């Protein structure tokens, strides 16, 4: 699974990096940076999914799902 964020769609809600700080991080504007684009399986994969599912803009995609 590969985690991607659509920077044009991200509006800086910050749900992803609050819920999954091991996968996402805030830039200086509060927008999302993916720090772990390939979270593998297990807890990190679940965290990535949690971050993606909670994005109000649906800006995060999980490829290879």
């Amino acid at each position, binding site marked *: 699974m590969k985690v991607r964020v659509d920077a044009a769609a991200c509006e800086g*809600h*910050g*749900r992803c990096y609050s819920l999954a700080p091991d996968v996402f991080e805030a830039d200086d*504007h509060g927008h999302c940076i993916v720090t772990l684009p390939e979270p593998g399986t297990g807890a990190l994969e679940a965290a990535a999914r949690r971050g993606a599912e909670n994005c109000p803009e*649906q800006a995060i995609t999980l490829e290879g799902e």
Partner: protein
Amino acid sequence: MEAQADTDPTMLLFAPETANAPHEAYRRMREECPITRSVDGSVSGNPGAAVLISRFEDLSWALKHPEYLSSEDAIAIGNDRPLIPLQIEGPDHAKYRRLLDPEFSPKKMAALEPDFRALVNQVIDRFIEGDGCDFHEDFATPLPSTFFLRLTGLSLDDLPVFLQWRDNIIRPDVEPGDFDAAAEIRAATGREIYAYFERALDERVETRDDGLLSRLLDAEIEGERLTREELLDICYLLIIAGLDTVTATLDCAITHLARNADARQQLVDRPELAPAVVEELLRFETPVMMVPRTVKADVTVSDVDLKVGDTVTMLLGAGNLDDAEFDRAGSVDFERERNRHLAFGAGPHRCLGSHLARLEVRVALEEWHRRIPHYDVAPDTDVQFSPGIRQAESLPLVFRSAGA
């Protein structure tokens, strides 16, 4: 009145007492008339068609398409020019947000947490020895406004006048429906606000302090400093948005937790739930019930044709209770897996202060429940919430010891 409320969910929605418990009105709007468009002006007081949108999917789409549903001109609150960034769209809006977002970013806010936590405890110290307090008056009002004045670098002595301006703008003291009188109060207050910030900016032109206003004086967009008018239009927005919404959110959250002992006990037992409690109560209570838009280009939303000039009320609270989006939407669940609530809006106008608001509400709830885990709404009290932004008129609480 009650009979009409029975038959017309719009009447129910705008009944003053609905702000106390809006869930039934929201449900009926979603189910019976998810998008209404009425041309008689009875809903908004405006001559054009009034539109109400209540389902999550439609709200979510509309908030992300300001080219159709614009935030320009959507509210007149005593301001001479569009508020920045709320009433600006397009590339200019993006420029202002690039300037302002870092001032309210999660990193900036995290640095303020110790200072805010200390302030919360100072405020609690004032009343914890007693049997109770008026939560709205003694806690929810002074806390965010004091912190706002610190952030901006303004004098705490000015707090009473700020609170009066806030009330004049957001809930002017007029007969219900007297839009002219409300507009007059807002215009007069607006002149005072502009004059105040003219002076505040003049002082900081002379001598910078470490507050936000001073930083804005030195801020540049593409090599250009902000004009005096731009600075004023930002300040105007900050005072309106900064003083009221967190107070309302605290009122809503504590009222909920006072009335729901199980939910409160979860937070007391597991303080690490606080961030989830904040998100779930933002969703379930939605302190800012609705936000306005105007239609800039004809568009069809879920088979309803909206026309240029229509005024649109986006019922964020209704969307946040929509079963089509949320699993068991009508239940409060602090372990909810997915919560894409719209309490801070969505799209380019996502609440600029949302990270500050989250910090304030989370830390306030953490410290409150650490120190005052057991409390109730005072007996025989009907808590009255104001419509629009759900702030309690007063919220008397009684404290009790464990098990009492």
